[in-house]
């Protein structure tokens, strides 16, 4: 005797966190039932496999119906179809938009396009995240990206408002959007050691210091885009590198300022551009911070360098990033 139709609908929608987890992870009903069985539910509740299947299917159906609403969380709050207590709604949204950092790391800086979506199979294999879950997370990224792409104001706040995410999660999404927008290449071998968290922190610093919103809150440009003018201006700073003279002066200024303060002074000179050397030379974060301070401040004393404000703005973010990246 098979049950063709089998539904359970509560006036308050039942949400089973474990089943939600399984659903989010992209398991099929059969897989989910198997996992629940392995969890010992059967013995604990003295029930049958059939009951477990029926229960799992009910939850899956509920989640499928909810998914549409989860795509626009404010609708979840306003909708009348499911009566869900607010804290449960928050949990649903939060879990739905939570992502695997490994996956996010893989996708960071990539264009959130169909092409990328097609590559998810490989990403799934590399990260161990189920393909269905990968797709859902990718779609989340893309959905958030599309929703805030054109909006003004602080990215993270916009995301928080539109998707009702907790602040930290909203900031992470802001980072993803930032990278997707500016297409930083994060896949380079030298950057492999950096985690998503590192990049997210960097993105935040960059947005905090470089974006339009950082200067003028009412700016017309979305935070995710770095202002063109700023990028233009940055060219001016190239003199610090391209002009051999200035570069040397800068170097010596920094060096003199730091003499005696940094234990690994000897290698200082070599370290002007990259982090790897610092790491290999076992700098302490304190050393790096000190170095960066002086490195940032030094040009003030350079003759003929007129872009100190710009430089400091640039360096504020860079310093933060470097400090973040400088870890084991």
């Amino acid at each position, binding site marked *: 005797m098979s049950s063709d139709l089998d*539904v359970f609908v509560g*006036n308050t929608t039942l949400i089973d966190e474990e089943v939600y987890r399984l659903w989010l992870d992209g398991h099929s009903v059969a897989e989910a039932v198997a996992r629940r069985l392995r969890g010992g539910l059967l013995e604990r509740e003295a029930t049958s496999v059939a009951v477990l299947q029926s229960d799992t299917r009910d939850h899956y159906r509920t989640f499928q119906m909810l998914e549409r609403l989860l795509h626009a969380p404010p609708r979840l709050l306003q909708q009348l179809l*499911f009566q869900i207590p607010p804290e449960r*709604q928050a949990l649903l949204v939060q879990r739905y938009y939570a992502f695997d950092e490994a996956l996010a790391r893989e996708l960071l800086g990539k264009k959130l396009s169909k092409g990328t979506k097609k590559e998810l199979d490989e990403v799934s294999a590399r990260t161990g995240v189920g393909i269905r879950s990968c797709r859902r997370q990718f779609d989340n990224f893309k959905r958030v990206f599309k929703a805030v792409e054109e909006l003004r104001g602080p990215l993270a706040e916009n995301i928080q408002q539109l998707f009702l995410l907790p602040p930290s999660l909203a900031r992470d999404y802001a980072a993803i959007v930032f990278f997707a927008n500016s297409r930083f290449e994060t896949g380079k071998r030298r950057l492999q050691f950096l985690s998503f968290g590192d990049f997210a922190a960097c993105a935040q610093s960059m947005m905090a210091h470089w974006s339009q919103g950082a200067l003028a809150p009412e700016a017309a440009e979305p935070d995710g885009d770095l202002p063109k003018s700023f990028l233009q201006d940055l060219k001016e700073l190239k003199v610090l590198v391209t002009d051999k003279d200035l570069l040397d002066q800068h170097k010596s200024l920094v060096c003199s300022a730091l003499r005696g303060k940094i234990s690994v002074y000897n290698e200082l000179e070599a370290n002007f551009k990259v982090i790897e050397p610092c790491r290999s030379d076992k700098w302490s974060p304190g050393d790096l911070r000190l170095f960066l301070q002086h490195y940032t401040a030094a040009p003030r004393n350079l003759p003929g360098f007129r872009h100190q404000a710009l430089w400091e703005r640039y360096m504020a973010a860079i310093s933060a990033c470097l400090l973040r990246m400088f870890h084991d």
Partner: protein
Amino acid sequence: MPGKLKVKIVAGRHLPVMDRASDLTDAFVEVKFGNTTFKTDVYPKSLNPQWNSEWFKFEVDDEELQDEPLQITVLDHDTYSANDAIGKVYIDIDPLLYSEAATVISGWFPIYDTIHGIRGEINVVVKVDLFNDLNRFRQSSCGVKFFCTTSIPKCYRAVVIHGFVEELVVNEDPEYQWIDRIRTPRASNEARQRLISLMSGELQRKIGLKVLEMRGNAVVGYLQCFDLEGESGLVVRAIGTACTLDKLSNTSAFLPACNSPSKEMKEIPFNEDPNPNTYSSGPSTPLKNQTYSFSPSKSYSRQSSSSDTDLSLTPKTAPSPQGPRIFLFPSSPTLSCDSPHLKKSCLLLSGSSIKPLHSSHVSPVVLRKSVSFTEELLLAASGMGSGSAGKEGGPFKTLLRQQTQSALEQREFPFFTLTTFPPGFLVHVGGVVSARSVKLLDRIHNPAFVGIMGNTRSYKLLDWNSFNSDEPETRDAWWAEIRQEIKSHAKALGCHAVVGYSESTSICEEVCILSASGTAAVLNPRFLQDGTMEGCLEQRLSWQPGFFSIGSEKGEVDFFPQSQDSSSLLGIEEASPPGCGFCHIPYDELNMPFPAHLTYCYNCRKQKVPDVLFTTIDLPVEAIVVGKGCLIQARLCRLKKKAQAEANATSISNLLPFMEYEVHTQLMNKLKLRGMNALFGLRIQITVGENMLMGLASATGVYLAALPTPGGIQIAGKTPNDGTYEQHISHMQKKINDTIAKNKELYEINPPELPEEIIGSPIPEPRQRSRLLRSQSESSDEVTELDLSHGKKDAFVLEIDDTDAMEDVHSLLTDVPPPSGFYSCNTEIMPGINNWTPEIQMFTAVRVSRLSNINPTNQTLNKNFNDLCENLLKSLYFKLRSMVPCCLCHVNFTVALPEDELVQIAVTAVAITYDKNQALQANKAPTEKSQQRASTDNEEQLQFPLELCSDPLSSQPFSPAKEVLEGASSHTGIPAAQRATSLEKASPLAEGYLRHRSVPSGTNSTVSVVKMTPLSFLPGAKITKYLGIINMFFIRETTSLREEGGVSGFLHAFIAEVFAMVRAHVAALGGNAVVSYIMKQCVFMENPNKNQAQCLINVSGDAVVFVRESELEVLPPQPAAAAQPTGAAGDVTT
């Protein structure tokens, strides 16, 4: 032109994209009432249009207001083609028509489309200005309040309970009209929805008129049902109990007035009748009802096939069509019940004036019917009055007979749809009475057939003649027959009233089974007359001689035809202890309608009680119960040959008695297995399908302290010489004994031991048991010769003489008790649990299963059906495991057989959490059970003073809160902080009120929470206001079943949508809960090959405002003081 309806369309949100090109919608709204339509402007290119329309005003008479729903249609404007409908909202404006309910309907409603489901929401404001209409001959009944709740609603007091009201309306079903072939499914569904909405409005209005005629002002226990008869049409019918209700807040004002009269009444009867015991005899056993189930109806019905229920026939006599299914003979109660019947039938055969319809078919059923008729007379004649006191046999008899006759002539029925009563209302309970009749539907629209009906009696032809001109008359006649039958059964039990009364139908193709059941009872007339106090002087005058014969012109039920009778009743009522009085038998011990074994009440030891009591009502609050209760179900399938029309109806009516018999046997066995002795809330549903009948009985078993301890179940083997067999039997016996022991522990059934001599009842002789052999050849005459004297047996004997019997025993044992932490019942409250915590979860579960046996037998079907139910319950327990400890209350199973081999079970229930620790304490004092109810109405106790002064009805919880609320509502502007501090002491209610209101009001905030429950109360909360009845009918159809997630996905979404629409309506009325919620119908049809499915759902309930008790706690415990000021304020409320 007595009313003006005003509607404003504010805004829409989350509309679907109707224009693919722009991904937007150009929405506008049509507002239609009656034949008038208004339109809003088109709000272009938006999914969240802000129409902010003017007030659309409809000037209509109040009849129209009552019948018509307000119809709001959202459309997408299309310049070049027809505008596309997005969806509709139907709003029943009835709640706005009576003063104490809602004053405005305002809120977000889901926009519903029968094909696409919910498509966005629309914000609407509706108001009604009613002008007073003094026209006496008006056709409307505005102002009559309707309640689904089957008890006197909290915050009201019953001044008079007038009695039964019923009405039905018939129409063609749009789905079956010719035009349906050319219109779209959407148009057809909408036509149907609208028609049903109209019909229920009309029905409600007509019922209201009847209530007004009776001088009532409300209908309680209102139950409206649809019969989708297919080709033959659509019937909307309703029953209810007319009452005169009084808002509790007003009581203080008029208490003094009513005080004296009621006292008077109490005393007078007492003095007049020195022999209070007249009526006090015993209870009925459950089977009894069946016994009486004969049907007069048959004689009137047009088809020969009509039949009734009675199980009473012993199956043995019946030449059963399928090869007789054999029964375990349960034991004394069953037997004893049956036997009288049989005897009588023999008697009666000779004398009965009514002839069996089919002469050729001398089935037991027929016999019974004819018999039963006489039987009833016999009973009446035998004089129920000759109780222990034994006096007044003669006059009493005649009086009764007179009464019987007059009652028969009367059009009204002494029925009450209530299941819970004010304390003292219920004097005695006789037992369950039920009646069924099988009817053929196709003839209605097919007059040509009438002539062809070969075996139709002339009666029927007569009956038929009317059908053309007036269809409702036919349906009315059908129900009238059934009700007559019920009434006569009740009389046979020495009862004048039927409480917990309900009616239902099961339709398959052209065959329809009509069923009615209730509990025969003797009521305290005081509650029925109180009305006189209300100031109808004439009435009072007219009473003086008879005192109790309330004017029948008023349509009130004539309960106690003669003063002596009633006074004696009153006397009894005063004398018998409240905790057990209702168990005392109402019929005459020496002349019982059936042999039952009676003992002296284990509680008061003064009156006789039966060994088992079955009822359809809720456990009376005052009942003394030992331990906890539990849900008991009997489940049964019977195969039936596919047949046409009359042959089909005949075979169904032949099967019915067997089914009822077996259902009762099962119930009895299961009850014993749990060590309990009474069933409450019994509901037996017989469902007819193409090739089978299904029976499902649900009830809540309890151990009533007043009734004797049930004996065990004893198994008797048939072949005693076989050693292994004996072993097997003893093994089973052990299993059964273990189960009983386990159940007693589980349900905490430890009745206090009573010394035997005190009881003075026939002492059981456990060894004695009579064996009944089943055999087909036995005729009814033989049966009567059987020794039916098991009245003295203590254990139930199960005879095992073949494999069927074996399986029956096995199946008895397959019912798994709920997992620990769970209890379940189908009544309002769980006996033995009294400390509910506020968390509730109402749910609906639906399962459709295929009985996929190639050659199904009754046994395999039974097993399948049993498994289906058990698995469903298991599944519920699992789903709700996070609520443990909790109780599933009001578990309501509905079975349907949508097509061959498909069984559909729908369950609606509510899970309520309770506090385990407190529960333990409470168990120590089971007598304080009545507190249970009090958990919802703290003030019950507080109101004791009121109660004492006159009227137990006034103990209906409470009142002040609401008024205070009203008062407080004007303070809404107070800042929150201030509220929290300053108001807390002054009027804590205000805070609660504010809290509740504030949520719904903000459109941007989350949606307000609306609780739903099938119970009449919310644990830990007080209902402060009833906003009106919710009665909604929806159709949903799909032509893309797979895409919507298959049948489960489709139905899951639909049920969720129905809940959502109910909640939205309640919230718009300003309410925060629906109580007495019921899903009356869930008709699901699928055609997987065409990828189509359709479902119809009908739900109802009472929209209410409740306030948490925790928010009320600060209220000073001075009910009297509180009541007065609020009483004064009461008038202010509109």
